Every structure is written in C-alpha cells, then in structure tokens.
C-alpha cells in the first residue's frame, strides 16, 4: 500500500513537470519579492547595527530563506479539497481503499519536492547572486533545517486541509481560504519576523502553530537560534503536527456524516 502512496508523490511530481512553464515566472516573482523586502529592511535599519537582535545581513538571509521555504511548503491543497467537495468528485475518492486525506498529503509532498528541486534550488542560487545572503557553513544546520522544512510542509498542509474541509460545512469557503493565506503569511513570519511583533501578539503567537511554519526554522537557519536549541524547535514542530491531527480527524468524521454529493 505504501508504494501506492509513493506513487501519488511521483505522479504529482510528473504532473507538475508537465505544467512547469507556470513556475518559471514564479522564480522571478519570488526574486522581486525578496528584493523589495531587502530594500525595505535596508531603509528601516538605516544606520542601526541591529534591530530586535537582527543584523542587516541576518535579516537579508532570513528574508531570502523564508521566501524560499515558502516556495517549498506552499500548496493549494485547501483549494483542491474544496473543489473536490464542491463539484462532487470526492465521491470518486471515497470508493478507493485509501485514506483521502493521506493521499492529499502525499500529493502536497510531491508538489513540495517539485518546487524544492525546480524552484527553490535555482531560486536560491539566483538570490545569492543578487543579494548579500550568508548561508550557514555547518552541514548539521543544513540537515536539521531540511527536517524542519518537512515539518513546515506538513503543518502548512494540515492547515490547508482543515480550511479545505470547511467546504463541507459552509457553502463557499473562498473567504476562509483567502483569510488563511494572509494569516499564514503574516503570522508564520514570512512578511515580518515575529520578533518585531508587539509583546502581546508575540506571546499569543507562541500558542499558535503558525510560527512553526517559517519563523522558528528560519531563525535556526540564520543562526539567530543557536543549534543547542534547535532540537526544541524541532520538538515543537512535531508537537504541532500531532496536535493538528486531532481537529482534522474530528472534522473529517463530521464531514463524512454530512457529505452531500453534488451534481447527481
């Protein structure tokens, strides 16, 4: 059975490859985003040496790495699930002897791998050429960062799955999906590192899963969080991964009961 799930990763990868032209423009858009934030932060720093403990070099690296990580963990599972529910094709998924949500997760992983190899890799090279990005030299940091990146993908996909499943309960969850996207970008720390949030918001964030998607791993990668604390970060990501399984399970159970297959 596992080989079937692996096949879903493979097939998604191949499908993405078939439409790869879409992604070339994406690399440019990401580079522009990184550039814009780089110049913005340069202006904010002015003559200051550090802000909230970030040096400008660290900040630049943080932005570049966070955006590239976003390229990896970002996917449209929420939209795919909502569409499956809305047009009724979820029926075809339920007659298969596999777990629909697990298959979706695997497809998300296939998409992530595609983006990692064809998007994040080349993107990072371009960014390093254009901006003063300092990547860590310690291979241990790279290894642990990649493990964290996996968890970023899982946690983000879990949030996407939850948002997508909301389509079972509301007629149109377009608004929710947009809200989720903005929330994840803001609270995960892609736009502004969480260190810059006001105190009350920062402490609220500690109780939410968003920072485990970008902020915490990127902080480890840029050296802001020392390696000695990296395991704690990884543990927190793992914890969120398991906690989020619970609402997904409940939502799925409730959804199965009220499933109403549309269109015949």
């Amino acid at each position: 059975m596992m080989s079937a799930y692996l096949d879903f990763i493979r097939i998604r990868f191949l499908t993405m490859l078939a439409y790869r032209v879409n992604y070339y423009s994406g690399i440019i858009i990401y580079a522009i985003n990184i550039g814009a934030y780089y110049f913005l932060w340069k202006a904010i720093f002015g003559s200051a040496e550090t802000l909230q403990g970030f040096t400008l070099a660290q900040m630049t690296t943080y932005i570049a790495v966070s955006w590239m990580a976003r390229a990896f963990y970002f996917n449209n599972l929420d939209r795919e699930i909502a569409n499956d529910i809305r047009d009724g094709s979820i029926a075809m998924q339920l007659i298969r002897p596999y777990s629909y949500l697990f298959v979706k997760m695997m497809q998300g992983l296939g998409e992530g791998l595609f983006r990692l190899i064809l998007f994040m890799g080349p993107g990072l090279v371009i960014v390093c050429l254009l901006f003063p990005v300092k990547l860590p030299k310690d291979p241990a940091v790279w290894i642990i960062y990649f493990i964290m990146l996996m968890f970023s993908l899982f946690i983000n996909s879990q949030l996407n799955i939850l948002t997508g499943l909301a389509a079972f309960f509301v007629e149109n969850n377009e608004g929710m999906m947009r809200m989720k996207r903005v929330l994840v970008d803001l609270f995960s720390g892609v736009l502004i590192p969480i260190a810059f949030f006001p105190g009350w918001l920062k402490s609220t964030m500690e109780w939410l899963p968003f920072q485990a998607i970008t902020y915490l791993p990127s902080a480890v990668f840029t050296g802001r969080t020392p390696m000695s604390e990296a395991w704690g970060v990884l543990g927190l990501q793992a914890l969120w991964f398991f906690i989020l399984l619970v609402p997904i399970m409940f939502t799925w159970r409730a959804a199965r009961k009220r499933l109403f297959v549309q269109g015949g």
Partner: protein
Amino acid sequence: MLAIDVKDLRKQFKVQKNREGLSGALKDLFKREYNEVTAVKDISFQIPQGEICGYIGENGAGKSTTIKMLTGILVPTSGQLKVNGYVPYKDREKFVGGIGVVFGQRSQLWWDIGVIESFQLLRKVYRVSEQDFRKRLDNLVERLDLGELLNRPVRKLSLGQRMRCELVASLLHNPSILFLDEPTIGLDIVVKTEIREFLKDLNREEGTTILLTTHDLQDIEALCSRVIMLDDGRIIYDGGLEELKNRWSKGREIQFQFGTATPLTKLQLLTAGLDVTWTMNEQGASMWLPHTINVSDALGMVVGGADIRDIKILETNTDDIVREIYRSGSASASAAATLLEAESPKQETEVEAEEPEKETSLR
C-alpha cells in the same frame, strides 16, 4: 448468500433555504434556515449474488443517493445496510476493495496521465499482484478492444473510449459486486451494445453481481432479470421485467393493411363477440386488443374475411410503460391489478400475411 441487503434505508439532507431580498439575505447571515429533504424513504430490498439488477426511476427519485450509500460514499440517516458482508460506511477502506464502481458522469481515471499509468496506480492501490494484474488487464483489453488507447492520456479519449477504460479500471481488482451509475449515458449504439455484451459475459463467467441505474431501458432489457423502480424515494416496483411489462401494458395493437378497402362496419362484424376496438387510418385499420384475448383468436377471425396485405403487431414498449408509471407515480395502481398475465410476443413482432398473387410486403 446475499450480495446486498438493505432494510429501511433512509437518507435525509439538510438543504439551505435562501430567503428573498436584501432583508432575507441579512437574516440568512445570522440565522440560517434549513429544509429537510428526504431523498430515500425507508427502502428495503435484497439482491442475491450473481444477479443483474436494474435500478430505475426518474431524475431525483433517489437512485444515485442509494448507490452512494451502497458504495460507502454517503452515510445513511437510518436503516440497516449490508453489502458484501460489510457495512459500507463503517469499514469503508476494507469494503471498497471488494466492489467496483463506475459513475457515467464522472471519471475515476487520472486526467493528466496515461491510461496505463492510471491502471498501474490502481493496481497498487488495490494491492493486486503483478501477475494477476497482467492476466486481467490483457483479458479486459482484448475484450473491450482497448489495445492502442492504453498509452494515451485520459483527456484525449473520446467518451466511448473513456467509458470502456472506466470499466476496466473498475474491474482490475476482480470485484464481486459492480455498481454502475448510468454507464451508457451519452454513448453511441455500437459502444452501448458492446458494453452490454461485455457485462453479460462478465456476469455469466465470473458471477459478478451487477446493480445498474440507467435511463436507457434497453440496457435493462438487454441485461436485467430484475428491476427495482424508485419514485420519490420509495420503491414502487421490485420484480421481473417481463412481469412489469405484462402488468402494465394493457394490451397490444395490430395494424392491418388491406388489399381492397374494407369498411369499419365489416371489420367490427368480423370480430363481433371479442372485446376489441377498431380504428381506421390512412393505410388501413388498426385493432386494439387487451391481454385477455389471444392474438391468434383475433387474427383468425379477421384473416378469413378480409383481403390482408400486411399485418404488424405492436406491443406497448417498455419506454411507454415506464413513462406511464412515472406519470401516475405508482406501480400498484388498481389498473395494473386487473390485468391478467398473458403470454405476449416480444416488443414488436411483425407478421407477414400470405398473399399469393400480389407483391409481398411493402413497408
């Protein structure tokens, strides 16, 4: 053993009510009102293994909803349900390994990849061994004539080609029950016939139980020994197709063409004593007789007294019968009860009368 056992099955949906106007929309924003719709109303039936059963009814009668409960897609509101020894919605992942499903309106193949890739993926999903898979696939490909289609992506197939591929996809894991929801919708007559033949063979050779919904009654006539008819969520008929026809067709019509003009009064005189009705038309006349009267008796009386060039016997066809039932909304109408079982000829039989001198039949 029973393949499908359904008892008092019911499914209710909550459907959102949209109130009118701006104030209605505002009210909806805070408090939603729902209508409860019962799509399937306490139906019970049993299907033994190896049977081909047709499941018919008007649009919205609850056919698809039933199929979706039987296949584990929908969870019933109440009632008992056992298919292949499983409660479908409870042990879904285990249960679906033993069934095959084809929804005519939806594809179960992956749109962007080649047909054979979809099949390979299904092989892994259903854990079919490479050997069994090869054997079954070769057999199915040959039977449904798919040879050169296998490497094409699904989106480049015609509807008929796709439907044959869907059938293969649903049978690769050798299911003991096959659910078909409008499998011949939109197909041309050649493909339809091919699919019917294939299903018949499948049932005979593998003993596969087949439950199919359709709007094409020829599917039913070609395949099914039994029909379940649904109307407004209730079963209104469950039994043989022949019996349904006999119960519902009130009689048949015999059309005559005469060599020499024959007046109505003469015809009525010929069949005096029989409860038949004559009507004149351009070509000749037609006689309507109920099932209580033998065709041969009636014909015998006419043949002796008139110069007949051609005879055509028209049995009420299934389409007409079913249309009539849908319209009246019940198969247990009193009219049906009064009709006796009669041995009726097939749908439409044409009898050519012997005519020594003149040219034979003109049609």
